[in-house]
């Protein structure tokens, strides 16, 4: 067993247990903090896969900005825990059944259909981070220029949408 594999197994254990912690904890603040840890673990996976830029974007945008926004809204609404209410009796049962079906199906597909399509190459020392980033940037601003610009418009529209939604309504007579 190589060092890479041991590293992978430990990290995936952390990722899965933090995801389960997010799912199972009653308090929404704990859920958010578990999810932050999960995002950071996935960022380490990106580093292992030789994608440093995506790893840093993951930490700043997901673990930083998005989760801070989540925590802010949780605390603003005071919605850490929901009061106990009557739940639909069949909902949990149906959800569990569907989830187990999904898990069995994906496992089946992976065990029967997926051919070994190769190992993740070791990020070799000759390819340094700067050239990697330069290649990524060149591709982003030549081949993928139009999607990049569309993304900027999307972010602008989202910003305007959020402002319009939470704005105090003026009285119109």
């Amino acid at each position, binding site marked *: 067993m190589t060092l890479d594999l041991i590293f992978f197994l430990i990290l995936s254990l952390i*990722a899965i247990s933090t*995801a389960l912690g997010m799912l199972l904890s009653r308090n929404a603040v704990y859920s958010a903090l578990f999810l932050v840890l999960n995002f950071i673990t*996935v960022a380490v996976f990106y580093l292992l896969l030789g994608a440093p830029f995506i790893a840093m974007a*993951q930490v700043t945008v997901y673990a930083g900005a998005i989760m801070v926004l989540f925590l802010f*809204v949780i605390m603003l609404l005071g919605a850490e825990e929901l009061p106990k209410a009557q739940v639909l009796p069949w909902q949990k049962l149906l959800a569990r059944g569907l989830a187990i079906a999904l898990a069995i199906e994906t496992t089946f597909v992976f065990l029967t259909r997926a051919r070994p399509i190769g190992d*993740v190459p070791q990020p070799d020392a000759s390819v340094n981070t700067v050239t990697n980033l330069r290649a*990524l940037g060149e591709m982003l601003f030549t081949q993928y220029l139009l999607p990049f610009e569309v993304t900027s418009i999307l972010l602008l529209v989202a910003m305007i949408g959020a402002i319009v939604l*939470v704005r105090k309504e003026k009285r119109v007579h």
Partner: protein
Amino acid sequence: MVPVNYYIVLSAILFTIGVVGVLTRRNALIIFMSVELMLNAANLAFVAFSSVIKSFSGQIFVFFVIAVAAAEVAVGLALIVEIFKSKHSIDVDQMSSLKG
């Protein structure tokens, strides 16, 4: 060397946990977090494949997914705040005004 299939299986497990969260939890914020978890699982698969075929396209896709997720969170949380203002709850079971 880690076979890429391991990454794909991990991504599938994380995605399934996200699906369970969306299906079972009633807190709208936690449902939202589960959606983020699912997006993240898909991103992991993208990066794993892009590193195997030695192309940057997968990483650029992940970049766009992150941007779209940021936009989605901004609008979605604004909607949740609005719903809380009118219903005083973010329990998704309470949002049944149209039920006959």
